[in-house]
């Protein structure tokens, strides 16, 4: 099977910074434009266990998914109608969760460590998005910014149940409490969704160090103004978070879709191959 190479049609840039307050950076980012994979993790835990948890997430998932898509292409359908991308993401996230959980329970220094996760796998003009926690995926399309993922946090649950409004949420003292995380339990509940992808789309994966410090309107303005220079755009987002106080680690991955990327035609059956010998 030919190796996936989306590097001509998908451009990626990353920027990760400890911020203005913390001494070490417990966020971790992975961008693989060739495979069409982006992974961002925001670690938590005492000492620098957070760093261990988040870097395990990106490293293990990066490796596992590269191998998974050598076995089958992401768009291939399995018996239950799911794409291989969906099945592989759920399966490998579960596997990575188990790895982080076992490291956490077998090492006193790592007890209680965990990490959020937001990841995207691009294939066949769409993307599979898996996330756990409050790290986010945004999309800029036709100049409009929308949040693609729904936070797994106490604050979001309060908003969803009508207890507080999104405006009031800005003043809550309960920020940064996630209701799901990787590595804190033997099993994890990964939220997975597939979305259509259009050329011209800009995607932003970010840790809460960005969206807690910078308003959505400012993020939208930055993505619209600097989409022609992705590395500059990524740096500008981090600078804005730091200019507003930088109270947490801040990380971003930017993805620009330059052209359509349909899946290659499935290999034909034996009849077609015999016919092609004669043509």
């Amino acid at each position, binding site marked *: 099977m030919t190796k996936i190479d989306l590097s001509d049609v998908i451009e990626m840039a990353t920027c990760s910074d400890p911020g203005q*307050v*913390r*001494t070490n950076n417990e966020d971790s980012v992975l961008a693989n434009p060739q495979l069409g994979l982006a992974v961002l993790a*925001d670690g*938590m835990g005492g000492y620098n266990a957070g760093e261990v948890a988040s870097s395990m997430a990106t490293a293990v998932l990066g490796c596992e998914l590269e191998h998974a898509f050598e076995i089958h292409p992401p768009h291939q359908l399995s018996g239950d109608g799911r794409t291989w991308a969906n099945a592989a993401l759920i399966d490998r996230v579960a596997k990575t969760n188990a790895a982080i959980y076992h490291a956490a329970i077998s090492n006193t220094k790592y007890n209680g460590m*965990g990490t*959020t996760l937001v990841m995207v796998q691009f294939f066949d003009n769409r993307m599979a998005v898996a996330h756990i*926690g*409050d790290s986010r995926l945004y999309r800029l399309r036709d100049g409009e910014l929308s949040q693609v993922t729904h936070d797994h*946090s*106490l604050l979001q649950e*309060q908003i969803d149940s009508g*207890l*507080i409004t999104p405006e*009031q949420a*800005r*003043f*809550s*003292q*309960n*920020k*940064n*409490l*996630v*209701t*799901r*995380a990787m590595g*804190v339990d033997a099993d994890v509940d990964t939220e997975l969704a597939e979305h259509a992808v259009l050329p011209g789309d800009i995607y932003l994966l970010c840790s*809460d160090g960005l969206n*807690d*410090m*910078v*308003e959505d309107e*400012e993020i939208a*303005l*930055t993505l619209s*103004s*600097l989409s*022609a*220079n992705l590395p*500059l755009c990524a740096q*500008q987002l981090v*600078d*804005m978070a730091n*200019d*507003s*106080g930088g*109270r*947490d680690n801040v990380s971003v991955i930017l993805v620009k879709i330059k052209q359509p990327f349909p899946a290659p035609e499935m290999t034909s059956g034996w009849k077609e191959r015999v016919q092609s010998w004669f043509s």
Partner: protein
Amino acid sequence: MAKLILSMDNLVLKEIPLNKERTTIGRKASNDIQIDNLAISGEHAVIVTILNDSFLEDLNSTNGTFVNGQQIKKHFLQNNDVIELGKYRLKYVNETPVPASQADFDKTMVLRPDMMRKAAEQAGAKPPEAARAPMMPSVDMNPPIAAAAPKPAPAPEAASAALLGAIQVLNGSNAGKTLELVKSLTTLGKPGVQVAVIARRPHGYFLTHVEGAKFPAVNGVAIDTQAHELKDHDVIELAGVKMEFFFKP
């Protein structure tokens, strides 16, 4: 932990800690906070506390519940809010204790099902401290620009330079036109040909090349890939257009 200070006619009557999920207020003895006065309904209001946040709700009382002079049905309580029931005042005090280190603040934590109860227990166990500096998240914020009305603390304001910058076109068909650099980013030039951006940051305005083979020039000298800080009366040249950057007095 948050608490209420009950007073009447400026005389403090008692201090009530908010250590329960529901704290009821009313005339009947069954209430957590019993106020024996005919102006107060039997079941007047309730305060629901979820970890560090408290919500006040009026229970269809006869005379209503007021916060800072405004009648409310449901209200998200902020530090120093004054709840008015008849002649009684309940001041809501929620001073988050200073964390062990600055870095603990804003740490993402996992909320496990048993945490809610644990957090309430821990909050109850903490000994009251004589003087605790209120931890306002905006302590290190730049003050907002003059025009904007002051907003209540926590959420960060868009940080921007104290002085307002502007550019005036010096040549071509737009000569004389002025553009105030209000936004955090102002793009200049022709997309696909030559684009630069002026970023408004707390410590000044910075010009950065975005795309194009040619780089913009400042005072006749082409800038490099780094952001270039603009000084009063710098002349920028970009895509054949000359403009002067200046700070508005």
